[in-house]
């Protein structure tokens, strides 16, 4: 409890500004780690639209990698990746 704000320091009425969870790390939940292989990636963005943790980083409409701060390692991105025979995202053990 120490270090957390006292009641006078909190905004009135159980309110916070939008999007503060951005700062919260859920990456440490991972036991499996996704790896992106850009050379195989076809930029279909199916990994991005399927991620439950908004952890696929897209810039200028292109997949650029993972936000490991948030990625929980569920493996949906790898499963949904349509590239064959070898997928553009693979899962491996978290080091």
């Amino acid at each position, binding site marked *: 409890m120490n270090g957390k704000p006292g009641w006078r320091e909190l905004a009135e009425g159980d309110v916070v500004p939008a999007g503060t969870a951005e700062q919260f790390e*859920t990456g440490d939940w991972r036991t499996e780690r996704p790896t992106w292989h850009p050379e195989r990636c076809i930029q279909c963005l199916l990994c991005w639209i399927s991620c439950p943790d*908004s952890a696929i980083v897209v810039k200028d409409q292109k997949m650029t990698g993972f936000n490991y701060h948030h990625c929980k390692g569920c493996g949906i991105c790898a499963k949904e990746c349509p590239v064959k025979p070898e997928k553009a995202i693979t899962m491996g053990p978290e080091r």
Partner: protein
Amino acid sequence: MANLKELASRKELLTGGHRMCPGCGAPIIVRQILLASKDPVVVVAATGCLEVSTTIFPYTAWNVPYLHNAFENAGATLSGVEAAYSAFKKKGKISQHVNFIAFGGDGGTYDIGLQSLSGALERGHDLLYVCYNNEAYMNTGVQRSGATPKGANTTTEPAGKVRQGKVEWRKDLTEIVAAHGIPYVAQSIAGNWADLTKKAEKAFSIRGPKFMNVLQPCRLGWGYKPEDTLNIARLAVESCVWPLYEVENGVYKVNSKPKAKKPAADFLKTQERFRHLFKPGNEQLLIEIQTEVDRRWEALVAKEPAVRTGA
């Protein structure tokens, strides 16, 4: 309809850093629906997994105005927000169009929140209610709900020596909602982004009450590996266990008719919650389930207009 590149250029309205299970289908649904809105969005969530996991003080994953009130009243709460908006609009205090969305799980929608939802629909508020339907009370540890299918193992209607999970058929909420005669009702899944975002876009283009019942596999309550969330939902469609369809101004349209309908068992056997159904002695129950799936599917297809022009 916006393609993925277009959607990817929009602002992410649900951040990471929320505490949903790895592989959960609910935030996928939420992200896709929020991305489908070109106008500002205001969200009300019913108590449930999504609500608790996305808003543990002082962290909120919502990048849009968001309100949680209680479990059974998302419909009424959003009615109030929309009523305030209309009042302000009339007074010229706000001019922008806003999409009002309620997210409720099946507990907060099929069961305890049904009255509140029904009232909101009947009163004609301009809002979209989305049920992220994982077919049980997952937030509190997989208790049965009105959405739980027959035969599913839940902690309050478990499979045992003499009973094989839920005894009753699930309630057909989509049809109950459609009976309200609202302009737009649809069923979709987590696992078909094109279907889901298209339906959300359509809902946002219509004024009045809209409802979407979105099947959301739950790795914890259904029992499967986290990466399988989306393909299990697709199996529900391919086996006609959960048809994709919409009712627009009373006109039914089935969006996906599998050429070769998969057996319901193909869907059921992917999940722990149905494992007991495949034990010797339960063959009859599987047949009953398949018969009911077929009956509901045929009844649904029969609701489509007899003559359809075009493809």
